[in-house]
């Protein structure tokens, strides 16, 4: 019998080796890859997100859990592909033009991927036209953008306006985040969602696709 709680705990503990061994053992014991993901790994990474959001876990613990998830997903991936298990959603992300700060964005990417999202990361300093081109070309449900500085916050508005001008605004939900951004500012800028950290970003993203 597969001990899903124990596997979750290995994610919470950031124990890459043990989580990998348990994932392999679970598959060998004829476990279903999707069930291992949904009942073992995802509850673990969600708990890590909660602990991070509550200030009980910090970046080292969060990034270790991300490493565990990457290792375990690499083991599960071939089985998930065979079973044609699709992503929870498709997410496009980047920091806005002029903003080079990416650690917050990278955490959001890691947590989204760990929670089963397919994420296209455009990187840093992404001009509005690049966001638009990616939205036009890809089949994304959400576009996330971040700005760490007051001087680059205007890039968020510029990108939303560019999406409108290109007739793409209704194709996607827009989420924003970053140190100087608040819920009020995000709403005024025309975003659909705002998150103050990576854990909240996953919750908000899931709520937004439920609305679609």
């Amino acid at each position, binding site marked *: 019998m597969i001990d899903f709680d124990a596997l979750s705990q290995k994610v919470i503990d950031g124990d890459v080796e043990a989580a990998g061994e348990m994932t392999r053992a679970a598959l060998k014991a004829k476990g279903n890859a999707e069930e291992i993901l949904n009942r073992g790994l995802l509850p673990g990474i969600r708990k890590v997100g909660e602990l991070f959001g509550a*200030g009980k876990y910090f970046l080292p*613990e969060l990034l270790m859990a991300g490493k565990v998830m990457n290792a375990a997903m690499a083991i599960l991936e071939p089985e998930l592909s065979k079973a044609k298990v699709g992503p929870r959603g498709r997410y496009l992300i980047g920091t806005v033009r002029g903003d080079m700060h990416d650690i*917050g964005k990278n955490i959001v990417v890691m947590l989204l991927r760990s929670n089963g999202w397919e994420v296209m990361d455009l990187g840093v300093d992404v001009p509005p036209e690049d966001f638009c081109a990616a939205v036009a070309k890809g089949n994304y449900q959400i576009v996330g953008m971040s700005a760490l500085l*007051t*001087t680059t916050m205007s890039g968020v508005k510029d990108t939303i306006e560019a999406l409108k001008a290109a007739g793409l605004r209704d194709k996607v939900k827009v989420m924003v985040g970053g140190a100087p951004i608040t819920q009020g500012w995000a709403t005024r800028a025309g975003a659909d969602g705002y998150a103050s*950290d990576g854990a909240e970003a996953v919750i908000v993203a899931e709520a937004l696709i439920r609305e679609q």
Partner: protein
Amino acid sequence: MSMTGLERIMTTLKHEEPDRVPHFEGGIAANVMEQILPGKSEEDFIEFMDLDAAVVHYRWFTKYEMIDERKRVARDMWGGLVKFSSELLPHPMGPALKAEKDLDSYKGPDPDEDWRYKVVEKLVKRFKGQRAVIPVLPDIWNVVKDFLMGDVWYFTAMIENPALIQRASEIPLNFYLRFIRNCISAGADIIWVHGDWAGTKYPFASPQHTGKFMGAYLKQLVGECHKLGVPCLKHTDGNIWPVKDVLLNAGIDALHPIDPAAGLDMAVAKAEIGHKVCLMGNVSCIDVLPDGTTEDIRRATKECIKKGGKGGGFICTSSNSIHTGVPGENYTTFVKAIQEFGRYPLDLG
């Protein structure tokens, strides 16, 4: 008789009241200076605004080798790749180390090269005894995280391989211990260590990890300054409250900026730690200074001085820096408000 800027700062660092609350900034964007005093040098600007210190940012101590002019990508002095943007400092793109074994053959920069100290010498020549000359250097942990290892490797190594971080940290530590000695020999009055320890909600690492990987090295930098008779200031944005004891235990003389964007309040800081460390801050450069009216700026400045100024031990600054989004006239209003409301004995109602 009014004090010199240097006397003003040294007096407040001793937790005594100077003639007025001192003011200087860790960074003032070139476009702001140009709006206020077109065509003049930074030294002229410092004198024109009557700032109490001339701060030498560490970009003046670093040389970059341009790798790709079009993409604005360069190699920094630690061997990593950085990208230039409109910000004051280029952003790290690729660390110098790819694997632990790279440390075996790694050769760091030379802290004794004369050119590094030319700006300090120039400012000392112009301002010695009148305004404090304050070189800024980065926190040791920031150098290792940003330029030697990269953030993901650095943070996971806190758990997986702490010995690697400790080994890598020795490189910038030895560089900056020597750098501090050289700056002080060149006439610097104060040293200022910059580097964030926290995001707006929480510190980047637990108090235990913060102490081990950030605090321990800061303590050595502060110790070197004190051994040479010079105060050491510390800047960190974010909610540092859960790790404030680590900062205080490092022996810093002043803490900047008591970040209001992270929910920190100058009055609370004054009551809880103001007797242990001089406080620097914290008029918001997120909203008040870029977007406020003259009255908004004057009100916020008065309030800030009222909260932090009593008894000295306080330097009024912005909540980070005077960045490109702060209109020149707003910065002028801010400086004038500090000079008006910051006269001791304070009488702010």
